[in-house]
């Protein structure tokens, strides 16, 4: 009987919820709550970190000599971020397809088709006449900035903002070329033009060229 009483007392002692247990559990709940509440923010920070690291690891890929744009797909829906356009050399805007993206200087390490709309070697800026050539991937990935170029029709407008000035262009011609690393640009050499290059929609063997003339 005495043994049984002792056992019962021991069990009672075990079942006592002490103040320290409550406080510890409370602290744990606060910690979990903080993690759950900041989960989306943490994911955003993680995306930023990965993006920064990809860019910083691309030091050896300064320019693209051969323009190859592909259909890129990663089935991810990305949130639009607040972009500081001041950091770019220029900004391409195509209102019809809701595109507004900056591009970097030709020598910038960020001027890489894997991260941005890319300025192609041999381009001239709008204030110098000639032809400004930009390219980007198609598809449905974050970097598929030219995914909806195929929706453009002759006469549609695009704008380049460069050195604080807006240049208005009108689409005059579109055509496809084989994807072999070389692109023939058929344009009027008397006019200042903008050439956009991307992969042809639903055809992985071709690239689409969009010729726009300064208005």
């Amino acid at each position, binding site marked *: 009987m005495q043994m049984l009483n002792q056992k019962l007392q021991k069990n009672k002692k075990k079942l006592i919820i*002490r103040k320290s247990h409550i*406080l510890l559990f409370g602290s744990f709940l606060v910690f979990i709550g903080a993690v759950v509440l900041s989960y989306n923010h943490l994911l955003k920070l993680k995306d*930023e970190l990965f993006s920064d*690291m990809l860019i910083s690891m691309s030091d050896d890929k300064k320019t693209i000599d051969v323009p190859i744009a592909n259909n890129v797909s990663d089935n991810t829906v990305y949130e639009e971020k607040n972009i500081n356009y001041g950091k770019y050399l220029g900004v391409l805007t195509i209102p019809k397809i809701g595109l507004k993206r900056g591009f970097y200087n030709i020598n910038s390490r960020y001027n890489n088709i894997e991260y941005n709309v890319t300025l192609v070697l041999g381009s001239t800026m709008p204030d110098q006449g000639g032809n400004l050539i930009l390219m980007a991937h198609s598809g449905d990935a974050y970097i598929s900035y030219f995914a909806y170029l195929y929706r453009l029709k002759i006469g549609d407008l695009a704008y380049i903002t460069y050195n604080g000035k807006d240049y208005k262009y009108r689409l005059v011609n579109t055509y496809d070329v084989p994807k072999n690393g070389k692109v023939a640009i058929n344009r009027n050499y008397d006019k200042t033009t903008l050439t956009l290059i991307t992969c042809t929609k639903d055809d992985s063997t071709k690239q689409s060229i969009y010729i726009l003339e300064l208005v």
Partner: protein
Amino acid sequence: MNLSIVEKITEIFKYIGSSFLSVSLFILCLLLFLISVINISKKNKYANYIIIVIYLAIFISIIIASPSYFVYSIDWLLKSIMKYIYFPSTGAYYMINLFSIIIIIYSLRSKKISKAKKVFNFVICNILFYLFLAFVVLVTYNKLDIRILDSLYKNNQVLSIVQVSNLLLLLWIIITLFYKLFIFLKNKYDKKNENY
């Protein structure tokens, strides 16, 4: 940019005497310091509370005045932790393993740590140690240059080992912190009650 320590201190003193605000801030900090020191022997409970309230009030007012700076600082801290987990340097990884060996030795020798915590330490540290050995073997066999981080990040197996190790270490730190908190709470509240 590359100033000597004397030049740096001179710059700070120049700032202290440069304006009414900087002199006021200096006097405020000096007063707080003096009150704290004097109160060590006086042991006035209210003085302690007042000092704490003043420090917190100053800190909170800085947060309110420039919330973006506060958010930026928190983001920087979180990003640094994430960077350490996802894109670790091999030097830091080496140090982690040195640290895990120290933990094993401490756990073996210590009489203060509970048995459960010792087992937990052994489990985590031995997994870390195994992963470190696997890392060394993979780096040697694949002839990777561990000083070039690109070669590390582009090898999925090596990267997974390092990232999982860092995640385990983070888990160990969190659990250890909660364990320490538990010990602290137990000593503070439960022992008092047991005396009654």
